[in-house]
């Protein structure tokens, strides 16, 4: 069974200097909810537009449902595309917007009326047929754009940053709706976002992009627990990162010497690390706070400098002499600002990464400290 989408070595240049896509290759399984995340400018919008057929690319191949669409113009590809701006036709009512694809494929009016009604009900906007786009709120416009995209059940749905301009509560609701509709329709969805929480919670398969290349692709929890590069580790979920030198390596277990002390962690890669500079990371929610003196594996002393209320957890920020910080996410604790505490974590939570990024030639310390 061919994959829903197969991209091979896609290269796209803007002008002479900007390489938006640098030989990108990946596959999307049929029926998957595929999320592409990456920072702004990493090429995810470009990628989507190339797949949609509205942007020309320099080299590479795109296969949709097994056939090469190189010479197939956009209107013959039988897919749907929803841009970041929704682009609802302002001169048409909701009904005509949603009916557009059906009209282009010459369905007859009675059929169209049924399908439009069905699509609008699916997105929760039953009865909105006669409205004008200018009369709708942002969230409603989004749903109309979605209805327009899903009508006539295309095999592939491309959504470019659909949730980036929506307020937080609406985001959660929409995310639920997306998943439900996806399950209902059973087709393949590809969605892009730069907000990592969306990526983690929505995706069946997650792909992290970075300036024209793919950093990692896999199930969300795989990337979260076993990131392969520093970039992926930072982009998916929050993480504290420090640079250090490997002093011992025994199978998966390594000992890393950092400015804060020697720590043990897990390395899932295949390199010989002894003597090399690597990144040592631990996620904020895996760190325990305890009074100084209680000794545990992988710990150091630090002073609590601030605490931020995030509702579901508190973000505590600890600082060591020299300005190095550690972020900890925990339930509210009886701690006092300015006091010293011990932060510690289990060895199995220590992530060791030797590759800064898929992009060659980057200095690992630069990537760690975000230079």
């Amino acid at each position: 069974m061919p994959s829903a989408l197969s991209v091979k070595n896609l290269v796209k240049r803007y002008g002479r200097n900007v390489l938006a896509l640098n030989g990108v290759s990946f596959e999307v399984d049929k029926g998957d909810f595929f999320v592409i995340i990456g920072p702004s400018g990493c090429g995810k919008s470009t990628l989507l537009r190339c797949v949609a057929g509205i942007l020309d690319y320099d080299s590479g191949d795109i296969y949709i449902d097994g056939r090469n669409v190189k010479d197939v113009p956009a209107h013959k590809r039988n897919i749907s595309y929803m841009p970041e701006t929704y682009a609802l036709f302002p001169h048409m009512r909701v009904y005509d917007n949603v009916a557009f694809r059906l009209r282009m494929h010459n369905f007859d009016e009675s059929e169209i009326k049924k399908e439009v009604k069905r699509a609008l009900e699916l997105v929760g906007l039953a009865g909105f047929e006669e409205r004008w786009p200018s009369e709708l709120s942002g969230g409603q416009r989004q749903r109309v754009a979605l209805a327009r995209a899903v009508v006539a059940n295309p095999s592939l749905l491309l959504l470019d940053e659909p949730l980036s301009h929506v307020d937080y509560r609406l985001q959660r609701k929409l995310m639920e709706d997306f998943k439900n509709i996806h399950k209902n329709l059973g087709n393949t969805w590809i969605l892009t976002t730069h907000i990592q929480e969306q990526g983690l919670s929505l995706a069946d398969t997650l792909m992290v992009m970075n300036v024209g290349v793919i950093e990692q692709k896999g199930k969300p929890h795989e990337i979260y627990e076993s990131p392969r590069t520093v970039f992926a580790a930072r982009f998916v979920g929050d993480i504290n990162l420090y640079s250090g030198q490997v002093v011992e390596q025994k199978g998966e277990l390594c000992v890393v010497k950092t400015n804060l002390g020697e720590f043990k962690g897990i390395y899932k890669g295949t390199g010989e690390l002894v003597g090399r500079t690597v990144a040592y990371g631990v996620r904020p929610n895996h760190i325990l706070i305890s009074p100084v003196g209680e000794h545990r594996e992988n710990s150091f002393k630090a002073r609590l400098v601030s605490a931020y209320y995030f509702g579901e957890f508190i973000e505590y920020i600890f600082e060591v002499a020299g300005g190095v910080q550690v972020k900890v996410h925990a339930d509210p604790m009886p701690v006092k600002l300015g006091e010293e505490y011990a932060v510690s974590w289990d060895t199995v939570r220590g992530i060791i990464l030797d590759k800064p990024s898929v992009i060659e030639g980057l200095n690992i310390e630069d990537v760690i400290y975000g230079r």
Partner: protein
Amino acid sequence: MKRDWVKIVLGIYTVFIIFIFYLPLILVAILSFKSDASITFPILGFSLYWYIGPPGLVGTSGFTSGIFYDPQIGQAIINSITLGVINASIVVPLVICAALTLRYAFKGRDLIFYLLLAGFVMPAIIIGLGANIFYKTIGITEYSIWTVLPLHIVYTMPFGLILTMARFDPLMVEYENVARVLGASGWKVFRKITFPLIRTQVISTFFFAFTLSLSEFLRSSFVIAGVGTIPTYVYNQMSVTAPTPKWFALGTLSMAISLTLLFVIAYILTRGQRRII
């Protein structure tokens, strides 16, 4: 409620300006009904002579008549209107082509943009004289409205281009992209998406092109012969004979028709639209 003094002052000022604008026209209308042949004050009597008077009755410089009996004026009117309509009909598709293409960035876009606007910029004599030489060089010696037409097109197109481009919906290309993915092929995209979005601009372009063509004189005079268009005809007559209210009658007539047309169009265009031009 605070009074918006700025609005009141500016409003009075605008009305004053409009009055100044229309003063010559009102005068033209009034004077067209003069019973004698001079165009100065005072007005001694009123008559419809200059409209429908048969040849020969009143006249200080010999043979004269009301416009109704003047076949040459009739011809000039027909020429002008024909030229105006044909000009506008050709300019509109050309402007659409240019405006839609100029949305995309490509090498030389700026140069082409300025080149298209240059038709407005070029002094009339240069265009007129140059066209004259050009026609001579390629062997065209007979002048008619067809020799004038290209000059009008080049002259009125920039105006339409500016009008159209200034009012583009910035998301227009995105709508087109989405429409294409939804199954619309090139021509369908234009018909269903692009054109409805620029329809008001297209209509405005048509009428501005017509307007500009009607009163275009400098360029036309270099490549015209015979009766010509209204402006060239009137100008030629002026150089030969003393002005009489006959010309005012012509002006009043065309004004009446134009204003009626304009108000009808204005009404159609502004009905339900959020913007006019």
